[in-house]
Protein backbone atom coordinates (compact mmCIF):
# COMPACT_ATOMS: atom_id res chain seq x y z
CA UNK A 1 0.00 0.00 0.00
CA UNK A 2 1.38 3.35 -1.02
CA UNK A 3 0.65 6.71 0.56
CA UNK A 4 -0.20 9.38 -1.96
CA UNK A 5 0.07 13.07 -1.27
CA UNK A 6 -3.03 14.66 -2.73
CA UNK A 7 -2.95 18.36 -1.93
CA UNK A 8 -1.89 20.93 0.62
CA UNK A 9 -4.59 21.14 3.29
CA UNK A 10 -4.95 24.85 2.56
CA UNK A 11 -6.29 23.97 -0.89
CA UNK A 12 -9.03 21.73 0.48
CA UNK A 13 -11.11 23.66 3.03
CA UNK A 14 -14.10 21.96 4.67
CA UNK A 15 -16.88 21.28 2.20
CA UNK A 16 -14.60 20.73 -0.78
CA UNK A 17 -13.78 17.60 -2.68
CA UNK A 18 -10.97 16.85 -5.08
CA UNK A 19 -11.12 14.44 -7.98
CA UNK A 20 -7.99 12.76 -9.28
CA UNK A 21 -6.66 9.59 -10.81
CA UNK A 22 -4.17 7.56 -8.85
CA UNK A 23 -2.65 4.40 -10.31
CA UNK A 24 -5.27 4.63 -13.08
CA UNK A 25 -8.05 4.61 -10.51
CA UNK A 26 -10.49 7.54 -10.38
CA UNK A 27 -10.85 8.66 -6.79
CA UNK A 28 -12.28 11.55 -4.85
CA UNK A 29 -11.12 13.02 -1.58
CA UNK A 30 -13.61 14.86 0.61
CA UNK A 31 -13.10 17.29 3.45
CA UNK A 32 -16.12 16.98 5.73
CA UNK A 33 -15.80 19.37 8.67
CA UNK A 34 -12.05 19.00 8.73
CA UNK A 35 -12.07 15.24 8.38
CA UNK A 36 -10.78 13.70 5.15
CA UNK A 37 -12.23 10.72 3.27
CA UNK A 38 -11.13 8.95 0.11
CA UNK A 39 -13.52 7.02 -2.12
CA UNK A 40 -13.33 5.30 -5.49
CA UNK A 41 -15.24 7.53 -7.86
CA UNK A 42 -17.15 4.69 -9.50
CA UNK A 43 -20.55 3.48 -8.33
CA UNK A 44 -20.60 -0.32 -7.89
CA UNK A 45 -24.11 -0.33 -9.34
CA UNK A 46 -23.69 0.98 -12.90
CA UNK A 47 -20.34 2.74 -12.85
CA UNK A 48 -21.43 6.37 -12.49
CA UNK A 49 -19.05 8.99 -11.14
CA UNK A 50 -20.47 8.40 -7.67
CA UNK A 51 -18.48 11.12 -5.89
CA UNK A 52 -20.02 13.89 -8.00
CA UNK A 53 -23.32 13.28 -6.16
CA UNK A 54 -24.61 15.39 -3.29
CA UNK A 55 -23.46 14.78 0.27
CA UNK A 56 -26.42 14.23 2.58
CA UNK A 57 -27.07 12.78 6.01
CA UNK A 58 -28.30 9.33 6.96
CA UNK A 59 -32.04 9.05 7.52
CA UNK A 60 -33.08 6.16 9.75
CA UNK A 61 -36.31 5.36 11.51
CA UNK A 62 -37.87 2.74 13.69
CA UNK A 63 -41.21 4.55 13.90
CA UNK A 64 -42.90 5.83 10.76
CA UNK A 65 -42.83 9.62 10.68
CA UNK A 66 -39.99 9.92 13.20
CA UNK A 67 -36.67 10.31 11.42
CA UNK A 68 -33.27 10.23 13.05
CA UNK A 69 -30.86 12.17 10.84
CA UNK A 70 -27.18 11.55 11.55
CA UNK A 71 -23.85 11.45 9.71
CA UNK A 72 -24.60 14.84 8.22
CA UNK A 73 -22.53 15.31 5.04
CA UNK A 74 -21.09 11.79 5.25
CA UNK A 75 -23.44 10.05 2.82
CA UNK A 76 -22.80 10.47 -0.88
CA UNK A 77 -25.78 9.96 -3.11
CA UNK A 78 -25.05 8.61 -6.57
CA UNK A 79 -26.05 11.14 -9.25
CA UNK A 80 -27.52 8.44 -11.50
CA UNK A 81 -29.87 6.30 -9.34
CA UNK A 82 -29.78 7.92 -5.93
CA UNK A 83 -28.15 5.07 -4.04
CA UNK A 84 -26.55 6.13 -0.75
CA UNK A 85 -22.98 5.27 0.28
CA UNK A 86 -21.22 5.95 3.55
CA UNK A 87 -18.04 7.84 2.73
CA UNK A 88 -16.35 6.48 5.88
CA UNK A 89 -16.77 2.82 4.97
CA UNK A 90 -18.07 2.71 1.41
CA UNK A 91 -21.09 0.65 2.42
CA UNK A 92 -24.36 1.11 0.59
CA UNK A 93 -27.62 1.49 2.46
CA UNK A 94 -30.03 -0.12 0.00
CA UNK A 95 -28.09 -3.39 -0.18
CA UNK A 96 -25.13 -3.34 2.24
CA UNK A 97 -24.25 -6.99 1.78
CA UNK A 98 -23.95 -6.88 -2.00
CA UNK A 99 -22.87 -3.33 -2.80
CA UNK A 100 -19.92 -1.43 -1.38
CA UNK A 101 -17.63 1.14 -2.92
CA UNK A 102 -13.93 1.05 -2.17
CA UNK A 103 -13.01 3.52 0.59
CA UNK A 104 -9.48 4.76 1.14
CA UNK A 105 -8.07 6.09 4.37
CA UNK A 106 -7.23 9.79 4.13
CA UNK A 107 -5.61 12.04 6.69
CA UNK A 108 -3.41 15.06 7.20
CA UNK A 109 0.35 14.77 7.51
CA UNK A 110 2.77 17.57 8.31
CA UNK A 111 5.09 18.50 5.46
CA UNK A 112 8.13 17.53 7.50
CA UNK A 113 7.15 13.88 7.61
CA UNK A 114 5.95 13.92 4.02
CA UNK A 115 9.33 15.12 2.89
CA UNK A 116 10.96 12.21 4.72
CA UNK A 117 8.76 9.70 2.86
CA UNK A 118 8.06 7.16 1.69
CA UNK A 119 5.25 9.05 -0.05
CA UNK A 120 4.20 9.34 -3.63
CA UNK A 121 3.69 12.93 -4.65
CA UNK A 122 3.97 12.88 -8.39
CA UNK A 123 2.65 16.29 -9.19
CA UNK A 124 3.18 18.19 -5.98
CA UNK A 125 6.16 19.95 -4.62
CA UNK A 126 6.13 19.46 -0.87
CA UNK A 127 7.35 22.02 1.60
CA UNK A 128 8.02 21.34 5.26
CA UNK A 129 6.03 24.35 6.38
CA UNK A 130 2.67 23.06 5.08
CA UNK A 131 0.32 20.23 6.00
CA UNK A 132 -0.78 17.78 3.32
CA UNK A 133 -3.73 15.52 2.61
CA UNK A 134 -2.52 11.96 2.22
CA UNK A 135 -4.47 8.96 0.88
CA UNK A 136 -3.47 5.36 1.42
CA UNK A 137 -4.17 3.07 -1.49
Amino acid at each position, binding site marked *: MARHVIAPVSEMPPGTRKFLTVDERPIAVFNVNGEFFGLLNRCPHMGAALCEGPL*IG*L*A*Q*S*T*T*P*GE*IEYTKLGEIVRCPW*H*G*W*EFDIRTGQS*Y*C*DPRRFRVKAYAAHVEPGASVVKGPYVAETLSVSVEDDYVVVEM
Partner: protein
Amino acid sequence: MTAPIAGGVDCDLHPAVPHLTSLLPYMNDYWRDQVTTRGMTDLLSQSYPTNSPITGRADWRPAKGKPGESVDDLLKHALAPFQTAFGILNPLYGVQLVFSEDMADAFCRALNDWLVKEWLDKDARLRGSIVIPAQSIEKAVAEIERCATDKRFVQVLMLVAGDMPLGKRHYWPIYATCERLGLPIGIHAGSNYHNAPTSVGWGSYHIEDYVAQAQAFQTQMTSLIVEGVFAKYPNLKMVMLESGFTWLPSYLWRLHKFWRGVRMETPWVDRPPIEIVRSNIRFSLQPVDAPPEPETLNRLFDHMQSDELLLFSTDYPHWQFDGDSALPEGLSPDLVRRIMIDNPHATYARLKDSVAKETTP
Protein backbone atom coordinates in the same frame (compact mmCIF):
# COMPACT_ATOMS: atom_id res chain seq x y z
CA MET B 1 -54.68 -31.05 -12.46
CA THR B 2 -52.93 -31.38 -9.11
CA ALA B 3 -54.82 -33.52 -6.62
CA PRO B 4 -55.97 -31.69 -3.49
CA ILE B 5 -55.39 -33.19 -0.06
CA ALA B 6 -57.87 -33.56 2.78
CA GLY B 7 -57.89 -31.26 5.81
CA GLY B 8 -57.19 -28.02 4.02
CA VAL B 9 -58.38 -24.50 4.69
CA ASP B 10 -60.42 -22.70 2.03
CA CYS B 11 -59.56 -19.05 2.62
CA ASP B 12 -62.03 -17.37 0.27
CA LEU B 13 -65.68 -18.41 0.22
CA HIS B 14 -68.52 -16.03 -0.49
CA PRO B 15 -71.82 -16.53 1.27
CA ALA B 16 -74.53 -14.45 -0.40
CA VAL B 17 -77.04 -12.35 1.51
CA PRO B 18 -80.29 -13.27 -0.27
CA HIS B 19 -81.87 -9.85 0.13
CA LEU B 20 -81.47 -6.79 2.32
CA THR B 21 -84.56 -7.93 4.21
CA SER B 22 -82.56 -11.02 5.26
CA LEU B 23 -80.66 -8.68 7.54
CA LEU B 24 -83.75 -7.06 9.11
CA PRO B 25 -83.81 -9.44 12.11
CA TYR B 26 -80.30 -8.23 12.94
CA MET B 27 -81.08 -4.50 12.84
CA ASN B 28 -82.55 -2.33 15.57
CA ASP B 29 -86.07 -0.95 15.25
CA TYR B 30 -84.91 2.31 13.73
CA TRP B 31 -82.89 0.77 10.90
CA ARG B 32 -85.48 -1.92 10.30
CA ASP B 33 -88.07 0.82 9.74
CA GLN B 34 -85.63 2.82 7.61
CA VAL B 35 -85.03 -0.10 5.28
CA THR B 36 -88.72 -0.91 5.10
CA THR B 37 -90.13 2.59 4.71
CA ARG B 38 -87.49 3.74 2.26
CA GLY B 39 -88.20 0.63 0.21
CA MET B 40 -84.59 -0.49 0.15
CA THR B 41 -84.42 -3.91 -1.42
CA ASP B 42 -80.89 -5.03 -2.07
CA LEU B 43 -77.29 -3.78 -2.01
CA LEU B 44 -75.78 -5.15 -5.18
CA SER B 45 -72.27 -4.12 -6.11
CA GLN B 46 -71.24 -3.84 -9.71
CA SER B 47 -68.12 -5.78 -8.78
CA TYR B 48 -70.13 -8.99 -9.33
CA PRO B 49 -73.16 -8.33 -11.54
CA THR B 50 -75.73 -11.05 -10.83
CA ASN B 51 -75.78 -12.60 -14.29
CA SER B 52 -72.11 -12.19 -15.11
CA PRO B 53 -70.52 -15.64 -15.65
CA ILE B 54 -67.82 -14.95 -13.07
CA THR B 55 -70.39 -14.28 -10.34
CA GLY B 56 -71.55 -17.91 -10.18
CA ARG B 57 -70.25 -21.08 -11.77
CA ALA B 58 -73.04 -22.61 -13.88
CA ASP B 59 -73.23 -25.87 -11.91
CA TRP B 60 -73.18 -23.91 -8.64
CA ARG B 61 -76.06 -21.61 -9.52
CA PRO B 62 -79.26 -22.45 -7.67
CA ALA B 63 -82.57 -22.72 -9.55
CA LYS B 64 -83.71 -19.65 -7.65
CA GLY B 65 -81.84 -16.93 -5.77
CA LYS B 66 -78.21 -15.91 -5.68
CA PRO B 67 -75.23 -18.23 -6.08
CA GLY B 68 -73.80 -18.88 -2.62
CA GLU B 69 -76.91 -18.10 -0.59
CA SER B 70 -77.49 -21.66 0.66
CA VAL B 71 -75.35 -23.13 3.44
CA ASP B 72 -76.05 -26.66 2.20
CA ASP B 73 -74.96 -25.78 -1.33
CA LEU B 74 -71.73 -24.22 -0.10
CA LEU B 75 -70.92 -27.26 2.01
CA LYS B 76 -71.74 -29.60 -0.87
CA HIS B 77 -70.07 -27.61 -3.66
CA ALA B 78 -67.05 -26.10 -1.99
CA LEU B 79 -66.17 -28.02 1.17
CA ALA B 80 -67.06 -31.67 0.46
CA PRO B 81 -65.11 -32.15 -2.81
CA PHE B 82 -61.90 -30.97 -1.16
CA GLN B 83 -62.54 -32.53 2.28
CA THR B 84 -61.93 -29.06 3.64
CA ALA B 85 -61.34 -28.76 7.40
CA PHE B 86 -62.11 -25.02 7.62
CA GLY B 87 -63.83 -22.65 5.25
CA ILE B 88 -63.41 -18.90 5.75
CA LEU B 89 -66.49 -16.90 4.74
CA ASN B 90 -65.94 -13.48 3.22
CA PRO B 91 -69.30 -11.80 2.61
CA LEU B 92 -69.21 -9.40 -0.32
CA TYR B 93 -72.40 -7.51 0.27
CA GLY B 94 -72.76 -3.84 -0.57
CA VAL B 95 -72.76 -2.66 3.04
CA GLN B 96 -69.40 -0.93 2.61
CA LEU B 97 -70.67 1.07 -0.35
CA VAL B 98 -73.19 3.31 1.38
CA PHE B 99 -71.98 6.83 2.13
CA SER B 100 -73.62 7.28 5.52
CA GLU B 101 -71.25 5.93 8.14
CA ASP B 102 -74.16 5.36 10.51
CA MET B 103 -76.04 3.27 7.97
CA ALA B 104 -72.84 1.43 7.03
CA ASP B 105 -72.25 0.69 10.69
CA ALA B 106 -75.79 -0.60 11.25
CA PHE B 107 -75.61 -2.76 8.14
CA CYS B 108 -72.15 -4.13 8.97
CA ARG B 109 -73.32 -5.11 12.45
CA ALA B 110 -76.36 -6.80 10.97
CA LEU B 111 -74.24 -8.60 8.37
CA ASN B 112 -71.78 -9.89 10.97
CA ASP B 113 -74.58 -11.09 13.26
CA TRP B 114 -76.31 -12.69 10.26
CA LEU B 115 -73.10 -14.52 9.41
CA VAL B 116 -72.88 -15.95 12.93
CA LYS B 117 -76.49 -17.10 13.11
CA GLU B 118 -77.14 -18.19 9.53
CA TRP B 119 -73.72 -19.66 8.74
CA LEU B 120 -71.19 -20.15 11.55
CA ASP B 121 -73.78 -21.74 13.83
CA LYS B 122 -74.82 -24.12 11.04
CA ASP B 123 -71.55 -25.99 10.52
CA ALA B 124 -68.47 -26.38 12.72
CA ARG B 125 -66.08 -26.06 9.77
CA LEU B 126 -67.15 -22.53 8.95
CA ARG B 127 -65.19 -19.44 10.01
CA GLY B 128 -65.91 -15.81 9.30
CA SER B 129 -64.48 -12.42 8.44
CA ILE B 130 -65.64 -9.27 10.21
CA VAL B 131 -67.01 -6.69 7.77
CA ILE B 132 -66.34 -3.13 8.96
CA PRO B 133 -67.65 0.38 8.19
CA ALA B 134 -64.18 1.54 7.14
CA GLN B 135 -65.17 5.17 6.64
CA SER B 136 -65.49 5.56 10.42
CA ILE B 137 -62.38 4.34 12.20
CA GLU B 138 -64.04 4.60 15.61
CA LYS B 139 -67.01 2.49 14.55
CA ALA B 140 -64.82 0.04 12.65
CA VAL B 141 -62.65 -0.57 15.71
CA ALA B 142 -65.73 -0.96 17.92
CA GLU B 143 -67.21 -3.51 15.52
CA ILE B 144 -63.96 -5.50 15.38
CA GLU B 145 -63.80 -5.58 19.18
CA ARG B 146 -67.46 -6.57 19.44
CA CYS B 147 -67.14 -9.48 17.01
CA ALA B 148 -63.67 -10.64 18.02
CA THR B 149 -64.94 -12.23 21.22
CA ASP B 150 -66.30 -14.96 18.97
CA LYS B 151 -63.17 -16.88 17.99
CA ARG B 152 -64.85 -18.15 14.87
CA PHE B 153 -64.15 -14.74 13.40
CA VAL B 154 -60.62 -15.20 12.12
CA GLN B 155 -60.13 -12.10 9.97
CA VAL B 156 -61.22 -8.52 9.26
CA LEU B 157 -62.37 -7.83 5.73
CA MET B 158 -61.71 -4.67 3.71
CA LEU B 159 -62.09 -3.81 0.05
CA VAL B 160 -59.02 -3.19 -2.06
CA ALA B 161 -60.58 -0.02 -3.46
CA GLY B 162 -62.04 2.12 -0.71
CA ASP B 163 -61.87 5.83 0.05
CA MET B 164 -58.13 6.22 0.56
CA PRO B 165 -54.83 4.39 0.20
CA LEU B 166 -54.77 1.77 2.95
CA GLY B 167 -51.33 2.70 4.26
CA LYS B 168 -52.55 6.11 5.50
CA ARG B 169 -52.26 6.62 9.25
CA HIS B 170 -55.98 7.33 9.33
CA TYR B 171 -56.50 3.54 9.20
CA TRP B 172 -53.88 2.61 11.75
CA PRO B 173 -56.20 2.19 14.75
CA ILE B 174 -57.82 -0.64 12.78
CA TYR B 175 -54.43 -2.23 12.25
CA ALA B 176 -53.44 -1.81 15.89
CA THR B 177 -56.67 -3.51 16.95
CA CYS B 178 -56.19 -6.37 14.51
CA GLU B 179 -52.59 -6.96 15.55
CA ARG B 180 -53.60 -6.97 19.22
CA LEU B 181 -56.45 -9.41 18.65
CA GLY B 182 -54.55 -11.74 16.30
CA LEU B 183 -56.77 -10.96 13.33
CA PRO B 184 -55.25 -10.76 9.85
CA ILE B 185 -56.76 -8.21 7.50
CA GLY B 186 -58.19 -9.72 4.36
CA ILE B 187 -58.17 -7.25 1.50
CA HIS B 188 -60.62 -8.41 -1.11
CA ALA B 189 -60.97 -7.44 -4.74
CA GLY B 190 -63.77 -4.94 -5.24
CA SER B 191 -64.51 -1.27 -4.92
CA ASN B 192 -66.86 0.77 -2.79
CA TYR B 193 -67.19 2.95 -5.91
CA HIS B 194 -66.44 6.12 -3.99
CA ASN B 195 -63.59 6.50 -6.47
CA ALA B 196 -63.32 5.36 -10.07
CA PRO B 197 -62.58 1.62 -10.12
CA THR B 198 -59.46 2.09 -12.22
CA SER B 199 -56.63 4.51 -11.51
CA VAL B 200 -57.29 6.31 -14.80
CA GLY B 201 -61.02 6.85 -14.46
CA TRP B 202 -64.26 5.11 -15.34
CA GLY B 203 -64.14 2.41 -18.01
CA SER B 204 -67.01 1.13 -20.10
CA TYR B 205 -67.00 -2.61 -19.37
CA HIS B 206 -66.95 -4.99 -16.43
CA ILE B 207 -63.73 -6.57 -17.70
CA GLU B 208 -61.97 -3.23 -17.22
CA ASP B 209 -62.91 -3.14 -13.56
CA TYR B 210 -62.01 -6.77 -13.01
CA VAL B 211 -58.60 -6.68 -14.69
CA ALA B 212 -57.77 -3.38 -12.93
CA GLN B 213 -58.09 -5.11 -9.54
CA ALA B 214 -54.48 -6.27 -9.86
CA GLN B 215 -53.31 -2.66 -10.19
CA ALA B 216 -55.39 -1.70 -7.16
CA PHE B 217 -53.70 -4.45 -5.14
CA GLN B 218 -50.29 -3.26 -6.26
CA THR B 219 -51.09 0.34 -5.34
CA GLN B 220 -52.38 -0.71 -1.92
CA MET B 221 -49.36 -2.91 -1.23
CA THR B 222 -47.05 -0.03 -2.12
CA SER B 223 -49.01 2.27 0.18
CA LEU B 224 -48.99 -0.24 3.07
CA ILE B 225 -45.27 -0.88 2.70
CA VAL B 226 -43.96 2.66 2.18
CA GLU B 227 -46.22 4.24 4.79
CA GLY B 228 -44.65 1.86 7.29
CA VAL B 229 -47.67 -0.17 8.41
CA PHE B 230 -45.52 -3.26 8.89
CA ALA B 231 -42.78 -1.30 10.64
CA LYS B 232 -45.37 -0.08 13.12
CA TYR B 233 -47.28 -3.38 13.34
CA PRO B 234 -44.70 -6.08 12.62
CA ASN B 235 -47.01 -8.91 13.66
CA LEU B 236 -49.90 -7.80 11.48
CA LYS B 237 -50.71 -10.13 8.60
CA MET B 238 -52.57 -9.06 5.50
CA VAL B 239 -54.12 -11.41 2.98
CA MET B 240 -54.79 -10.29 -0.58
CA LEU B 241 -57.97 -12.08 -1.60
CA GLU B 242 -58.86 -12.74 -5.23
CA SER B 243 -55.87 -10.59 -6.14
CA GLY B 244 -54.02 -12.91 -8.46
CA PHE B 245 -50.33 -13.24 -7.76
CA THR B 246 -48.36 -13.77 -10.96
CA TRP B 247 -47.79 -10.01 -11.19
CA LEU B 248 -45.76 -10.09 -7.97
CA PRO B 249 -42.20 -10.54 -9.34
CA SER B 250 -42.33 -7.72 -11.88
CA TYR B 251 -44.21 -5.43 -9.49
CA LEU B 252 -41.82 -6.10 -6.63
CA TRP B 253 -38.80 -5.66 -8.89
CA ARG B 254 -40.12 -2.22 -9.83
CA LEU B 255 -40.88 -1.26 -6.23
CA HIS B 256 -37.51 -2.55 -5.00
CA LYS B 257 -35.63 -0.75 -7.77
CA PHE B 258 -37.17 2.64 -6.97
CA TRP B 259 -36.97 2.11 -3.22
CA ARG B 260 -33.19 1.72 -3.55
CA GLY B 261 -32.96 5.24 -4.94
CA VAL B 262 -35.39 7.03 -2.63
CA ARG B 263 -34.94 4.96 0.52
CA MET B 264 -34.30 8.10 2.56
CA GLU B 265 -37.86 9.37 1.96
CA THR B 266 -39.31 6.43 3.92
CA PRO B 267 -36.44 5.27 6.13
CA TRP B 268 -38.80 3.12 8.23
CA VAL B 269 -38.78 0.80 5.24
CA ASP B 270 -35.52 -0.69 6.46
CA ARG B 271 -35.49 -3.80 4.28
CA PRO B 272 -36.35 -4.55 0.68
CA PRO B 273 -40.10 -4.63 -0.05
CA ILE B 274 -39.97 -8.28 -1.09
CA GLU B 275 -38.83 -9.21 2.42
CA ILE B 276 -41.78 -7.34 3.91
CA VAL B 277 -44.13 -9.19 1.56
CA ARG B 278 -42.59 -12.52 2.56
CA SER B 279 -43.04 -11.81 6.25
CA ASN B 280 -46.41 -10.03 6.35
CA ILE B 281 -48.49 -10.49 3.19
CA ARG B 282 -50.25 -13.56 1.79
CA PHE B 283 -52.32 -14.25 -1.32
CA SER B 284 -55.31 -16.45 -2.00
CA LEU B 285 -54.89 -19.03 -4.73
CA GLN B 286 -57.93 -18.45 -6.94
CA PRO B 287 -58.16 -16.95 -9.47
CA VAL B 288 -54.83 -18.32 -10.68
CA ASP B 289 -53.70 -15.81 -13.29
CA ALA B 290 -50.82 -17.91 -14.64
CA PRO B 291 -50.77 -19.68 -17.99
CA PRO B 292 -51.32 -23.43 -17.65
CA GLU B 293 -47.68 -24.48 -18.09
CA PRO B 294 -46.35 -25.74 -14.72
CA GLU B 295 -42.85 -24.38 -15.32
CA THR B 296 -44.21 -20.82 -15.52
CA LEU B 297 -45.85 -21.15 -12.14
CA ASN B 298 -42.86 -22.77 -10.51
CA ARG B 299 -40.59 -20.04 -11.86
CA LEU B 300 -42.79 -17.59 -9.96
CA PHE B 301 -42.17 -19.39 -6.67
CA ASP B 302 -38.43 -19.31 -7.47
CA HIS B 303 -38.60 -15.57 -8.10
CA MET B 304 -40.40 -15.00 -4.83
CA GLN B 305 -37.99 -17.32 -2.96
CA SER B 306 -40.86 -18.49 -0.81
CA ASP B 307 -43.40 -21.29 -0.65
CA GLU B 308 -45.30 -19.61 2.19
CA LEU B 309 -47.17 -16.96 0.23
CA LEU B 310 -50.20 -18.76 -1.17
CA LEU B 311 -53.33 -19.80 0.69
CA PHE B 312 -55.79 -22.27 -0.78
CA SER B 313 -59.08 -20.82 -1.98
CA THR B 314 -61.89 -21.80 -4.31
CA ASP B 315 -63.43 -18.31 -4.48
CA TYR B 316 -66.80 -20.09 -4.35
CA PRO B 317 -69.23 -19.44 -6.00
CA HIS B 318 -67.24 -17.33 -8.44
CA TRP B 319 -66.36 -19.20 -11.60
CA GLN B 320 -62.59 -19.49 -11.61
CA PHE B 321 -62.15 -23.21 -12.46
CA ASP B 322 -64.18 -26.25 -13.44
CA GLY B 323 -64.78 -29.50 -11.59
CA ASP B 324 -62.50 -29.75 -8.59
CA SER B 325 -59.35 -28.55 -10.36
CA ALA B 326 -58.73 -25.67 -7.99
CA LEU B 327 -55.00 -26.44 -7.81
CA PRO B 328 -53.00 -25.61 -10.94
CA GLU B 329 -50.81 -28.17 -12.72
CA GLY B 330 -47.32 -28.88 -11.54
CA LEU B 331 -47.43 -28.20 -7.79
CA SER B 332 -45.27 -30.57 -5.77
CA PRO B 333 -46.95 -32.55 -2.97
CA ASP B 334 -44.94 -30.50 -0.49
CA LEU B 335 -46.23 -27.25 -1.96
CA VAL B 336 -49.80 -28.56 -1.99
CA ARG B 337 -49.56 -29.27 1.73
CA ARG B 338 -48.18 -25.80 2.38
CA ILE B 339 -50.83 -24.05 0.31
CA MET B 340 -53.74 -26.06 1.67
CA ILE B 341 -52.76 -26.57 5.33
CA ASP B 342 -49.51 -25.07 6.65
CA ASN B 343 -49.72 -21.58 5.19
CA PRO B 344 -53.36 -20.90 6.19
CA HIS B 345 -52.71 -22.12 9.74
CA ALA B 346 -49.59 -19.95 9.98
CA THR B 347 -51.66 -16.96 8.83
CA TYR B 348 -54.89 -17.46 10.74
CA ALA B 349 -53.77 -18.01 14.33
CA ARG B 350 -57.39 -18.15 15.46
CA LEU B 351 -57.98 -21.42 13.62
CA LYS B 352 -55.99 -23.07 16.40
CA ASP B 353 -58.01 -21.25 19.09
CA SER B 354 -61.29 -22.47 17.70
CA VAL B 355 -60.03 -26.05 17.43
CA ALA B 356 -58.92 -25.94 21.03
CA LYS B 357 -62.29 -24.58 22.08
CA GLU B 358 -64.18 -27.34 20.32
CA THR B 359 -62.14 -30.11 21.90
CA THR B 360 -62.50 -28.63 25.38
CA PRO B 361 -65.64 -30.01 27.01
